[in-house]
């Protein structure tokens, strides 16, 4: 657990690349692919995995070197000037975005975006409810008039079936 806490961030991107690269190579060996496709994927995936390993080793070495120095550690992590509860707020905004995507087919874009904006404003700790309601209403209107009306985007109307075009 301690290892994950210390090195999880450094390893996250290389692990994702490793997983995707391994999947791509495995798929090639099992699927009905042409020789040229296999060559192309290997030409990209193998150097990628090699360079991923090199960058992880570099990062781990750097982390070990700087572990004694607080200043260097702060420099290594871009989020050094993070305010209190920053991680929680990020997780909330991401979660709200995913919830919006999930509920859009049911609530429709007008209600969905209105609630999403209100919730995000609450998540980023804007406690002026009048301003929040106004911004949420304006954004729902912008989505309706600009994206749906003017640009013809086909957003789900959900329960507001009378808005169906």
């Amino acid at each position, binding site marked *: 657990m301690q290892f994950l806490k210390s090195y999880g*961030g*450094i390893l*996250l*991107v290389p692990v994702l*690349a490793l997983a*995707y690269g391994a*999947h*791509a190579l495995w*798929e*090639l060996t099992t*699927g009905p*692919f*042409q*020789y*040229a*496709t296999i060559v*192309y*994927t290997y030409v*990209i995936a193998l150097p*990628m995995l090699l*360079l*991923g390993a*090199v*960058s992880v080793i*570099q990062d781990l070495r750097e982390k070990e070197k700087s572990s004694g120095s607080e200043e260097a550690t702060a420099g*290594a*992590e*871009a*989020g050094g*000037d*993070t*305010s209190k509860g*920053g*991680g929680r*707020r*990020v997780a909330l*905004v*991401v979660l709200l*975005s*995913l919830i919006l*995507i999930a509920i859009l*087919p049911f609530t429709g874009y007008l209600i969905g*975006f209105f609630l*999403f*904006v209100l919730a995000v*404003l609450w998540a*980023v*700790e*804007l406690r002026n409810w009048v301003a929040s309601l106004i*911004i*949420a209403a304006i*954004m729902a209107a*912008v*989505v309706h008039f600009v*994206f749906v009306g003017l*640009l*013809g*985007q*086909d957003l*789900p109307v959900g329960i507001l079936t009378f808005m169906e075009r």
Partner: protein
Amino acid sequence: MPDALFEGLQLFLANFWIVPIGVLIGMFVGGMPGLTSSGTLAMLLPVLLVLPPQLGLLLGVSLYAGAEMGNSFPSVMLNIPGTAGGAVTAFDGFPLMKEGRAAWALGICIMASVVGALIGGAASLTLSPQIAAVALRFGPAEICIVILFGLAVIAQLSSGGLAKGLFVGLFGLLLATTGTDPTFGTHRGTFGIVYLFDRLPVIAVLVGLLGFSEVLVYVEKGLSRLLRPGDEQVEHHIGLAGIVSGLKETFKYPWELLRGGAIGVGIGAMPGAGASVATFVSYQQAVAFAKPERKQMFGKGAPEGLIAADVTNNAVVGGALVPLLTLGIPGSGSMAVLLVVMTYHGMYVGPRLFQFSGDIAYAVLLSQFFAAGFILVIGTILAFFAYRVAYLNLKMMVPIISVFCLMGGFARNNFLFDMGVMVVFGCLGYVMKKFNYPVVAMLLGVILGRLFEREFMRAWRIGLDSPELFFTSTIAQILWVLFVFTFVGPPLLRYLRRKMRSGSAAE
């Protein structure tokens, strides 16, 4: 030709009113993440077909030119490029905005775009036949090498180190293989998800990696404003004076303007390459030829970087018109829509276009000069209001930008799934920024991956399953030499210059 040119001028003057409308719509479209000029032109196709051919073509070309400039606004102000070509503008534009110099940066973008449009216009008007002949000799292997010029940016710009840059660049190329194999039609990396059968939605990836990740960074830092009017640490260039100062600043870099313009015209004339490749190549060249002390500034607010991106973006429009008007080959999606307009009206498409419809062809070419003028006027007016975004309360901006990002992910295909892809890549971009992985390198890989793979496959098959074709043609060999020179040349030249200087000082 002079007769046709004169008739074209007359025809243009009778219809020039459509140009500012096209530029204005284009700037709006370019400024909206996820909306591309080609997509909007496709949506406007019914209108373009109803209009007389000259009006439809003038509207299309001016919209394309306006969009190439308009994408600089969100790139500079919000780090959300409107199009793939605008991503490079964000490298140096956004850091300048954070320093309180957004008006100055936008001034540079506007003037560089104007110069780019003028260079593109002049080149397409005078050099059309010659450029088209050279561009036609570029086969798949040569196009691959040109793309490698763009990918070389990874090696030269990665702040986290060369290995990290190349690693995520290749990861991006691998991610771009998701979907249907362009040559053989087999599905790869889709995990059985139907929405990925076509390909990874590039615009959603782009908006996520650059835009939504930035929102998450703000949310984490808990900033209330990007800039404060009373902040003593930041010297603000507010209002028209800042914009005008930026407009003037552009002319201090004539070589960057000329080089970027030439790259834009050249790559724009190559079918399939487009603004995304051209701007990355131009930026890479600007870095390669910069003095060592200026090199450090790239990615932190170098005006040379902004100029390289924006002059090329707009010069591409002129370049893309060359194969369309002289050979009937559309160099980009926008040009393909214009080709449809031309054929719908029964215009001769191909080398004899200037013979049969010379007046319309010249009217289209001449319109670029007027579009440049309107870009200056409309761009300045918009910039006067746009830079104020930096002073807004970020807590209010977070949901607003998030909605635009979500809609940017959705707009291209109208799939809610793409919104999810945008959020996932936003999270990935946020982690990458936190641990010093160059997000742009991955983006470059994803954007250019499909084109690179297609051309690689074609070259591989033409070479009968051998890489021979990449090294045998004269053009390929010249390109390889130039490619190597890009890395070796500038330091070598500087070394020789230093040696000569120290030699003359010793004497």
